């Protein structure tokens, strides 16, 4: 999947993956896609909850090479 920006949250624990994802989205334009990579297992539920509450679309949530990968489309 194509993306406009990437944020690597590997090694970060709650709440940093979410808080810093929010910061990464700040300078993006609506419709642009952010790819987030994380190692925190809690981020799977948290990213879905983040997307639901903020209106950003969680296009994909999966895992790659032992890490969690998310694609968020900015609202």
């Amino acid at each position, binding site marked *: 999947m194509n993306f406009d920006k990437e944020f690597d949250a590997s*090694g970060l624990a709650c709440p940093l993956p979410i808080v810093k994802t929010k910061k990464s989205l700040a300078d993006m334009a609506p419709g642009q896609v952010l790819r987030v990579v994380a190692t925190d297992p809690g981020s799977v539920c948290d990213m879905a909850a983040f997307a639901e509450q903020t209106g950003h679309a969680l296009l994909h949530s999966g895992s790659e090479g032992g890490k969690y990968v998310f694609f968020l489309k900015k609202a």
Partner: protein
Amino acid sequence: MTAKKMAIIATKGALDMAYPPLILASTAAALGWEVQVFFTFYGLQLLRKDLSGIAISPLANPAMPMPVPMPVIVSVLPGMQAMATSMMKAKMKKKGVASLTELRDLCQEAEVKFIACQMTVDLFEFDKNDFIDGIEYGGAATFMKFAGETDVCLFI
């Protein structure tokens, strides 16, 4: 959509109890919530510029995981609190848990409003110069004004 609101009363100044208010406040702010944290009694320690004095004690803390089983009497020995604190901080760093300073900075950056309890400042004769900038000083009525409009209100 109107932003949701959360108010937290932070009353504890130990390392473990310092985290929940800052984690919840920074997360809620990231979700677009309007957040205020009222720091009172020992919670006020979390507003100091220098947070290096924030500690954790295994004393009266039976649920704290220890590397080796330790009789309670050992926890009383001099240096045990410092040792427990440095071990906990090292573990947190290794596991990617943010420092208190980093979380607090993230809160302030996300416009979480910090209110320091004026009564506690007076009670313990704290010097306001020891506290970070960008905070307000107020009392219970200040807190209630916002708390009354919130969706989530927590006492920690």
